[in-house]
């Protein structure tokens, strides 16, 4: 199933909802979207809502690595609701230490943090 990306900004929090499969073919789209969302004035947190994401290839992880290093310390990355297979990929390669991995997120709490 193709990747669907839907993004919204809530004050200082940008939420990128992903559903379907994140493979090499669509990684660039996500990368561009991430940069665009993080570029909104006042955005301090980017949440990747992965609850509907069923597969992530290495290209997907690359986008997260890119986002972490490109956006720097000023923007916090949160990965929310990753399904077990996706979460395991992130953990096996050690990227979970660079982001917050949460099951669910609370926009108000993130916005006030």
């Amino acid at each position, binding site marked *: 199933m193709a990747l669907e990306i839907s993004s919204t900004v809530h004050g200082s929090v940008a939420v990128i909802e992903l559903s379907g499969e994140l493979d090499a073919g669509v990684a660039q789209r996500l990368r561009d979207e991430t940069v665009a969302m993080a570029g909104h004035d006042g955005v301090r947190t980017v949440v990747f809502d992965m609850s509907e994401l069923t597969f992530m290839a290495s290209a997907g992880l690359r986008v997260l*690595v890119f986002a972490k290093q490109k956006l720097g310390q000023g923007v916090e990355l949160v990965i929310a609701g990753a399904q077990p297979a996706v979460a395991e990929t992130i953990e096996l*390669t050690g990227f979970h230490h660079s982001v917050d991995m949460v099951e669910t997120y609370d926009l108000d709490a993130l916005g006030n943090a």
Partner: protein
Amino acid sequence: MSAVASGRIDYYPTHEHEGFKLRAGSVYPFGATLTPTGVNFSVFSSHAERCTLVLFDKGAQAPRVEIPFPPEFRIGNVYAMTVFDLDAETLEYGYRMEGPYAPEEGHRFDATKILMDPYARVIGGRDEWGRTPDWDDPYQHRARLAFDDFDWEHDRPLEIPIEDLVVYEAHVRSLTRHPSSGVRNPGTFAAIREKIPYLKSLGVNCLELMPVYEFDEFEHSRPNPETGELLVNYWGYSTVGFFAPKAGYAATGRLGMQVDEFKKLVKELHVNGIEVMLDVVFNHTAEGNERGPTISFRGLDNKTYYMLTPEGYYFNFSGTGNTLNCNNPIVRNMVLDCLRYWAAEYHIDGFRFDLAAILGRDPSGAPLNNPPLLETLAYDPVLAKCKLVAEAWDAGGLYQVGSFPAYGRWAEWNGRYRDALRKFLKGDAGRAGEMANRIAGSPDMYGDRGATASINFVTAHDGFTLHDLVSYDGKHNLANGEDNRDGANDNESWNCGVEGATDDPEVLRLRRRQMRNALAILLTSQGVPMLLSGDEVARTQHGNNNTYCHDNELNWFDWTLTETNADLLRFTQGLIAFRAQHPVLRNRWHLSGRDLVGSGVPDISWHGRRAWEPDWGPDARYLAFMLDGAHARGGRAQDDSIYLAFNAHWETYGFELPQPPHGRRWHVFVNTGMEAPHDIHPHGDEPPLDDSSHILVGGRTVVILVAKAAAEGNG
């Protein structure tokens, strides 16, 4: 294309082939390199006439496109081309080389073969361990691109002083493949991360991994004639690609993320104070002899990469079919590029070179006095803080233990240490003198190089495990399917009375003691101790001393042994902790045998059954020595004095003790004559000797005493 990139004229293509946009590439670096606009391909061949780049979609058998290098894209012997707009995630690439097929002249070009890039940093085709390959695929080992975007944070190689190192030799898969390992992804880099607490509790601070460069477990695979079980290239001493970690060792190998997974392991080990040393095999490749597969080197430039006889056949100094031509300048540079890459990109702390004597041979096979490769590595700025360890012999009869060209940098697996300890341990007469030299860091062999030139070991992956060393007189290798012909015959082992498994309590008790004796001597010797993974829990290979082909319990670490043999594990932990607590055991340079700090006794003194009177006679099967605490680190560190008596004779002997330093008494740290838990005493709980002038040491027993103020122990 970014705005910055688009402003540069060199980011525009000049050529086109079947819709692919091209430009002359950069000759350096060799390999495939991501650029802002595409991928730069650079490959070398001194004898090819034409080169074609072959591009695949990941996993596809048929190429997506074949792009001949335009003649103007060759500079010297290097073909270099940038291809624009490639998707690095889904790309696989190889080369076809056209040139003469003339084996008698050393050339074996074959344009029907698709060749792997020797600089490939990710290699597909064996993505999951043990999954039967598609043998119809014309491109078996598939070069891919790697990303260098791993987030190392503040990590870098640890640079632990070599005199403080305790090396633990392990096989990636063996460590966690056993069902008892309790990890989520058995047999992988990720799984080792789950065993870091164990390594820390053991106390080792350097994990030496048997080969992790991409290899093919199916090389020479064959059914076991007795059981039908598949015998494979399990150990991996046969490299397919020197720049790529083995995909089948990564839980994420099927996703092509082995680079990240292995880097994560290195980073995590570093956080826990454990270095990573790689066992690297530069003496030969997986292509075998003229009957072997053409994977890469043979088809790219056979005459450059391999040592060839005048008739064009392969020299076989490695015992495996071919010999890499390491002192050819091209090959030498490849080895250097490779090691720099692993040191810089993977933060590897050290390298152990398999059959390293080969690295000192010239292209005709003759040993060189001043081998350029070894010198280059020794003085390289990137490798300057890496440990370099040689297995200083080869299968062609060159034995350089003690004489390996060291340039002040190289350490050696000290095979003579192993042999001396084994002979002494089993009670051979007249071995005390040599044993003393080995315990002292082999000053007779490494006079100018210091004690740390000696990597001391009693067992390694080659040969018996420690348990089997004291349980078998001879090897039992029938399971290897070679009628027990393979594997070493000179094991210097002793079965303690019964060959193999037994329930005789006396034999078992003696074996337990002998294992402890070996560990105690090893971990109190000057030099760098190396343990074979599993020896601390008496792992057995049932007498098999060459388990290179077994993906089964002959190799897998059985974690239930940490409970069954918890007392031996505790003993080993205690010895490693003792070594860490006592700098007198860890000297960079040789001890002098003289009093250099005015303590009244030499830094090391030798004793016998009478204090100050060592017995080096032809019948001696024991020795004793004292390390003076006032001399620790040349007198700059405070330490306790330590007295050690090794009695390898079957009789009990009384040993007169040298005086402990003023105000101190001898306390018992180790007495292998006692059953657990009285074989070893925790730091601070060492019981004092009633009589500090004399001790009885049982037959085949090691006693280690430490001089402490009377109130320090439980006295």
